[in-house]
């Protein structure tokens, strides 16, 4: 379904979706974040600091609560999320491409009921990038594109006074149907304008990971390279690179105790990261990834080798957040390029 939406009708479309929760980029304390949209949705944002990953995979999630009188069997209450339907506006194509990657992880082998309870309720309305929103964008070199609709339900492209709206899923069609009278049919001239806008977007220069197809084998060959230690020397293990990433999914599970007699508490999942030194540490003190070089290698190899070996795609969408966010300037593009260069 391809339609035209005049920009002044965007708010009406959002009003027509009022039985759903609407989120859109908002500037709060100098940070762009997806927030519940008020009356007006702003799509003049660069990119959000965090991807919309948390809508399906929140940073903290309660699995169940427990209550136990000493010596007796505990009472467990599972807390599967009950969330309303949500539509998130202004998703960049790189973040859209993260969605099928996260879906893979949370459905491979067994389904994750918490992820899917949320995920099924979220629809993604994307906005094509006409300018790279960050100087660290490299989506094109990792198989994406600033106008990709992968993982999105609707892709909007800015045509000046109007948006070109293309539904890419059944959910997307339903969203557009909800505001049917607001949309106009797209003409051939509109399509030609769209193609021009997309061609221009694709021609804008970006940073580039060189020869991404060769990376799985080059990384494999570089496993024992001393380069990793050198490249990771500055790393302070803060984990920002993974917490900002739209495709990183590692987590921890812990019990939070809220009362002693009877014992009360919750079992909680929280984001975790392979960049923390104790992530893989055994209780004995043995740590299979002892130094920051091994941990950087894990992050990069997981994205460009292991995930590729399992699912035939890179687990990096080129959003550039890990580069922009790293306090010590560790840059996945140059790391990957240097390692690949050394592998020959």
């Amino acid at each position, binding site marked *: 379904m391809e339609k035209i939406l005049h920009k002044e009708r965007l708010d009406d479309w959002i009003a027509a979706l009022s039985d759903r929760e609407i989120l859109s980029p908002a500037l709060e304390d100098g940070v762009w974040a997806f927030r519940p949209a008020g009356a007006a949705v702003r799509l003049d944002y660069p990119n959000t600091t965090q991807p919309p990953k948390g809508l399906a995979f929140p940073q903290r999630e309660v699995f169940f609560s427990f209550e136990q009188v000493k010596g007796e069997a505990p009472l467990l209450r599972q807390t599967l999320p009950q969330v309303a339907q949500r539509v998130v506006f202004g998703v960049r194509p790189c973040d859209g491409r993260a969605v099928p990657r996260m879906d893979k992880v949370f459905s491979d*082998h067994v389904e994750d009921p918490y992820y899917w309870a949320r995920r099924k309720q979220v629809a993604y309305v994307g906005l094509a990038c006409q300018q790279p929103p960050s100087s660290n964008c490299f989506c094109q070199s990792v198989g994406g594109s600033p106008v990709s609709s992968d993982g999105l339900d609707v892709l909007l492209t800015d045509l000046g006074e109007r948006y070109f709206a293309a539904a890419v899923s059944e959910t997307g069609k339903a969203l557009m149907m909800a505001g049917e009278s607001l949309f106009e049919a797209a003409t051939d001239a509109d399509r030609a304008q769209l193609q021009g806008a997309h061609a221009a977007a694709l021609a804008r220069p970006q940073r580039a990971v060189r020869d991404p197809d060769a990376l799985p084998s080059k990384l494999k060959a570089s496993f024992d390279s001393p380069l990793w230690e050198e490249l990771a020397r500055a790393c302070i293990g803060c984990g920002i690179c993974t917490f900002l990433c739209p495709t990183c999914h590692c987590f921890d599970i812990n019990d939070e105790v809220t009362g002693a007699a009877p014992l009360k508490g919750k079992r909680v999942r929280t984001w975790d990261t*392979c960049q923390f030194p104790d992530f893989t540490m055994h209780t*004995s003190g043995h740590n*299979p990834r002892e130094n920051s070089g091994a941990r950087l290698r894990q992050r990069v190899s*997981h994205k460009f080798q292991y995930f590729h070996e399992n699912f035939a795609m890179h687990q990096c969408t080129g959003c550039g957040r890990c580069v922009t966010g790293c306090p010590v300037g560790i840059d996945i593009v140059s790391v990957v390029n240097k390692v690949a260069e050394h592998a020959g």
Partner: protein
Amino acid sequence: MQDNVYLPQLARVVRIADEVAGERAIKTYHVEPLDSAGFEHACGQCAMLSIFGRGEMMISIASSPLVKEYKQFTIMRTGRVSLAFHELAVGDVVGMRGPYGNSFPIEAWRGKNLVFIGGGVGLAPIWPLITTAMAQRGDFGDIGVFYSTRSSSIMYRAELEALRGQADVHLEGWRTHQAGVAAGTAEQTVTAENSVAVVCGPPAMIKSVIQNLCQLGFADEQIFTTLENKMKCGVGKCGRCNVGKDYVCVKGPVYSWAELKKLPQEY
């Protein structure tokens, strides 16, 4: 496996046995599922055990799949959750989810000689193999059991003694710390021909014993071990046990040395 993979079944501790005393004490537990069917398991699989308020830990199921009424776990006191296990009394109720991981291909080993080498609490993951093989003794050739530990205490001592006569039992037989040396006892009794060796223990011990076995002529396909990478979810999502393209909780914990060699050395 349950619909919600993160929701444990409740299970009652029906027996607790002291194995080893001291700082890193070891105890064995028999656990029976409460008001639920429980689950079947295969040799080598493990379960995520919970103490509510403390958390979860991954533990090998140490009983034979032939035993249906209870699951056996042998737990060393190391950290937060295992400590809480060591404070339990018979009758207490814990959480259990699983079974997780792959299993030893014991069906394929019929007619072969079996050599088991356990170090410390690493005897637990191979105990279901030993007890299953003993229950079907006629199906296998010679069976050798080697056990060594850093302390002088031997876990499952009575059970190991009871194997004598049917199996070649060497307690403290394989001095793993003499890395690279195919130690005396083993050399005399272990032959590679038509044999399978299963090694389980601390990572350093596994690595040196595998070297020994290779020197004795064992091919990579004849040597099996288990990885004990840190685990949290057990179902291939949390990423903690990731080694190369494998999530050890799903693809492992059982590996032949041939398979293990294909993975990066991050265990």
